[in-house]
Structure formats: C-alpha cells, structure tokens
C-alpha cells in the first residue's frame, strides 16, 4: 500500500530525512518511534503533501501512485489521512459542515453520490460514539475552544467519518490523559480492518499499550535504524534510545 524508498528530504537546505525506507501493507499497523528531531513529523508532513519540504532523492508510492506528484487534497481523496499533532482552529466554520464537505469531496472523487444533510447526520452520530464525543462539539467551529483532548478526539472522529485507507497518526498521544488516550486508541482499534493500514508516530511507548503494532521502527537522524515487533517498543521504554544510537554509530 505504501512503499517508501531511499527518501531524502531537506528543509531550508538542511537534510532531515536521509534515505528512509518503509513498506506498509494492508491490514498492518506500523509504529514509528524515535527521539525528538529525528524526522518523525517531517515524514508525516511529506507523505501528506505539506509545502516547505524539498525531496532530494527517493520515491514514495501509495496504492501504486506516485505520492510525491499528488496535490495534498488528492492524496486525501485517495484515502490518505493525517491526524495532526496540533489540530488547527478554523473560526466560524461549523465542525459538522466542514466534515460533510470533506466527506463529500472524498465521495465525489470515488464517483459516489454526495450525502445529504440527513444521511450525513446519522453517519456522524454513529461515529461519535466511537470517540465518546459530546454532541455540542459538532455545532462549534472547527477545533475552536476545544480542549487538547477534544481536539485529538475530533481528529479521530474525522478519521472515522472519512474512513481512510491509510491513516498516519502524528503524535496523537501527546498531551492526552490516560482516559483520552484509551478512547482515542479504542477508536483506532475499532476502525482497523484487513483493508486499511495505520502508521502511528509516537515518542512514547504508552500508546502502544492500547494499540498493538505489527511492526515498530526506530527513526534516528533521518533513517530507520532498527525495525522489529512490539517487543522492540518495550525494550525502548526500558532502555531509552541511547543504546540503539550507539549501536548504529558503531555500524
């Protein structure tokens, strides 16, 4: 589904990703861990098409399509979803109409009929239970005045409504208390199917107590220096990143 080969990316002439390789297949959950500044968020942004990043070499294909050639909205319509580390506030824009617009853009792209207000509302009410979100948040402007936890839940709600093929969660666990973490993780688990895949970017092992990954990758200085199963995450939790970094330097 996602195939990244030797991806090299720089920001303002400074190399951030230095030859990254990653293969994600349908039905898999991949966790990407790593210390601050290792390039985790850059990876999420480059994959979703954010401006300000220069691809120097390598490739990224999604469902066989050249991802790097696609406009961000096309990637989204093709089923790629990014849960933001810091969800953005859009004053005055109603959360429900925003979501309806987003869903209908995806549906239009797929050649499906657009949902009217009634069908949409019944869909959204069902999905709201997934993230235990209060209904009044739907009537408020997008993310405006939401608490940190509410914003993250709103991200998961959007994910549930848009039903992506590939979801990238960029430090969704940061700033969440344990209850919110459980709810967010529960949402992801319920959305998991053999047809879709998740890339979970996280700094801590904590989230992985609730979402069990098939693979764990350690990103350091723009490269994946170690890949393993969920046991690797536990090891990192115990020993930190330093032993790995030293190992990789020796190599």
């Amino acid at each position, binding site marked *: 589904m996602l195939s990244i080969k030797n991806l090299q990316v720089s920001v303002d002439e400074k190399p951030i990703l230095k030859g990254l390789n990653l293969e994600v297949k349908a039905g898999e959950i991949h966790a990407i861990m790593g210390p601050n500044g290792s390039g985790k968020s850059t990876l999420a942004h480059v994959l979703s098409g*954010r401006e300000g990043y220069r691809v120097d070499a390598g490739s990224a294909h999604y469902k066989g399509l050249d991802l790097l050639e696609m406009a961000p909205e096309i990637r989204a319509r093709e089923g790629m979803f990014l849960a933001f580390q810091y969800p953005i506030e*859009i004053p005055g824009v109603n959360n429900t109409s925003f979501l309806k617009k987003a869903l209908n853009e995806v549906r239009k792209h797929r050649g499906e009929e657009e949902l009217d207000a009634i069908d949409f509302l019944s869909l959204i009410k069902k999905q709201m239970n997934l993230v235990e979100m209060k209904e009044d948040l739907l009537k408020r402007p997008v993310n405006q005045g939401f608490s940190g936890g509410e914003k993250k839940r709103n991200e998961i709600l959007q994910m549930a409504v848009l039903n992506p093929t590939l979801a990238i969660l960029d430090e969704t666990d940061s700033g969440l208390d344990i209850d919110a973490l459980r709810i967010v993780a529960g949402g992801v688990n319920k959305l998991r199917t053999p047809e879709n895949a998740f890339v979970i970017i996280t700094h801590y092992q904590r989230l992985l107590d609730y979402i069990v990954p098939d693979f764990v990758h350690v990103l350091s200085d723009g490269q994946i220096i170690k890949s393993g199963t969920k046991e690797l995450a536990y090891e990192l939790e115990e020993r930190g990143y330093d032993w790995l970094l030293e190992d990789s330097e020796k190599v």
Partner: protein
Amino acid sequence: MIKENNKMTRDNDKNIAMSDDQQTIQNITDQDYKYGFVTDIEMEAFPKGLDENIVRMISAKKKEPEFMTEWRLKAYRHWRKQKEPKWPKLKYSEVDYEDLYYYAAPKKEAPKSLDEVDPELLATFEKLGVPLEERELLAGVAVDAVIDSVSVATTFKGKLGELGIIFCPISEAIQEHPELVKKYLGTVVPYTDNFYATLNSAVFSDGSFVYIPPGVRCPMELSSYFRINASKTGQFERTLIVADKGSYVSYLEGCTAPMRDENQLHAAVVELIALDDAEIKYSTVQNWYAGNKEGVGGIFNFVTKRGLCAGNNSKISWTQVETGSAITWKYPSCVLKGDKSVGEFYSVALTNNYQQADTGTKMIHLGKNTRSLIISKGISAGKSNNTYRGLVKVNKKAENARNYSQCDSLLIGDQCGAHTYPYLEIENPSAQVEHEATTSKVSEDQIFYLNQRGISTEDAVGMIVSGYAREVFQQLPMEFAVEAQALMSVSLEGSVG
C-alpha cells in the same frame, strides 16, 4: 420631447463652437445606432461637463416640478464651492468632473455580444450560476431592456399596491407623490452634506423610492435589482425609503454578479427614515467591476448612505457585503434621534489585487436609551488596502446610550494592508461604549489542514473567509447569504498559493 431636446443641444452649440469632443460624440452615437440602439438614447446625450444649464436640462427631461429644479440648482451652486475630500486612505488619479457626462452618456465601447466580453468575467458568471439571459445585461452587452424583469417588476407592484406600499423609480415618485418626496428628500442627507452627495443632489439620474404606510409589514424583500435591469440608473443613483409608524421593510440592493458599467465614477445617495416603532433593514451586495489584476479600470464608488431613526423605538439595520469597485468610499450611518432607537451596521469588505476600500459607519446617538451595534469584517488580499473608519458619537442629551463595536481584519498574503480608524466622541457620562478589534491572517496551516481533508485550496480559502464573516452573512436574507459566500471564493481566486 425629442424635438425639444434637439433644440437645447442646438442652443448649446451656439455658445460653444462644435468642438472635437462633440464631433466625437456625434460619431459615436451614429455608430451605436448601427448596432440597434433605440434612437432616443442618442438624442438624450448631453454634452460633457456640468453647468446650471445641464442641471436644468436634467430636471426638465424628467418633467420635474419647480421645487426639484430649485433644489438641484441649490445643490449645484453649493457643489461649485466645494473640494473633493482628501482625508480617505485612498489613492487614485483625480477625476476630471468637466470631462464627464451627467446624463445618459453615449455608450462608447459596449461589447456587441458575449464573444467580445472579457472571458474571465464570463467564467465568473459561470461560477456564480448567473442565468444565461442575465449575463449579456451584466456584461454591458448592448441589448434592449429585459422584458422578463420588467414584467416581474409589474406583478410585484400590483401586490404591493394593495397594501398601500409605494415602490417605484424615484423619478416617478417625484411626479406622482411630490408631497412625500418634498417632505423627506434631503432630510437625512442634505444637499450640503459632502462633495459627492452634493453632486448627486444636483444631477441624480434615478433610483428607488419606497414608502411603507403605518402599521404595514412589507411581505417581501424589496429588491432594486429587477428595477435597475428595467431602466439603467447609471452613476448617480438616489434612493429614498420611508417607513411610517409601526411598519417594517427589508430592502436588498445590488447583486452578486459583477456588474460592468461604462461610467467610472459612481456617487450614490441612500436616505432611510424610520418613524415611531418602524424598522428598516437595508442589505447590499456590491460587486461593481473592480478593474483587472493590474488595477486598471474599475469603478470609483463614492456613496453616502444614512438612516434616520426619527421615531421612538425605531430601528435601522445596515448589512453590506462589499467586494467590487476599484475604490470604495462608503459609511452607512445611523442617526438615532428617537428615544430607544437602535442602529446596526454589519459589514464585510473584501479587497483583492489593487482594490482600495475606506468604509465603515457612523452611529450618532441623540435620543435617550439609544443603542448601536457595529460588526465590521475587513478582508484584504493581493496588494489591496482595506480601511475601517467609524465614528460613535454620543450627544450631551443622549442618556444611557450604549454601543458595542467589533472591527476585525483578516489578511491573506503579505502584500496587503488593513487599517482601523475608530473615532469615539462621548459627551454624556452615562454612555457605555465598547470597542474590540482583532487582526488575523489566513494561515498556511489552516489551508493545509483543509487540504488534508480533501478540500481544494480555493474552497478552503472560501470556507475560512466565510467562517470569519459568518456573523455578517447571518444577517443577510437566506438566498443572498448563500450567494455571498460563493462570491467570497470567487473574489479571492488566485490570492493564495
């Protein structure tokens, strides 16, 4: 009539030898005839420039009673003594007032068909969903008056007539209801008011007149759109709306489709009068041609709009969405004379490319317990400049006056400007006046966030701007509000990314 007019032109010729200019006019009018203009339009082309003679001719042409001719002349004489105001934050090449036609200018470059119209303009019509039959008219293509809208207007009129509501061109009102016109015209915006209003008083060509009798609630939104289509009112429009005791009216001006006009200078005057317990809601969507992307062409729009809450418990509410014109100079105001009267001003002013807008409101509190509300949302994009200029004045005798003002500015890109000049003049210690102002930017983060949810950049900017201006759009009649939101996206096209 035609004869008489010819004679006048001849009289003029005696005084001034047939100049090159006039020769040109002659040529042009002859030319236009070939393309099917009705004859009397060219016959009515007055020479360029303004003098007492022209003012008299305009008045005579409209068969006005003596009092109107006199009023126009007084305005003209006053105008001669005035200078164009220089205080607005606007830059434009000076208008040569002697080089203008003040009545029925011969149409110089009217496109003969839609094939000759700027394709970008046509694309805009397409996006706004303007009906095909209206496109020619809006683009200024030389067509005869649209029969449909004339008949619509007539049906309309019958219905309103049953309720005693008068809704007609002001030229018609001057002839048929001179007592009402005489009583109210110039009482809110006197002919001495300001340079442009004074000029308008001398030469106004046409406009709307509305009178709502006591206790009547006007059952429909009155719109000048149909009527203007039927008879082009041109550059000096004059509107007078009187809501008698306990009545209500909602009036819509303009339309969302960009309108072309061969006249660059527009100086309209709108006067509203609300008697005891009456309410007037006046909504405008102004989208005159703004010039091209380099800032060439475009309408200069100098408008004086003022409402008088003459009676107790009266209310006047202005809502404006300003997206067009190269220059906008406009301050819809309320004079709160009656006790407990209420004035409201909701405004969205959007400027793009090289557009300039200096707009705002004045709330003049004279009566006791008067209240006013100002919600102003400026949006600047491209290399444009957007200025809010507002005055809240509380008179010595205006006990317990209250005002709340909110003036927000939104910037798109980094080459535009937003400016806010709020003036407060408070002469009564019991007044409560609040002013809030914010400036924000449409951020790349916001656009990317919406992109990442499958929404195109164009739609994203439209959504963000509509969200920002929501409080104002909510005041517009439903249909208008939907159109106005579409207009935001179209007007901002190409301003991002």
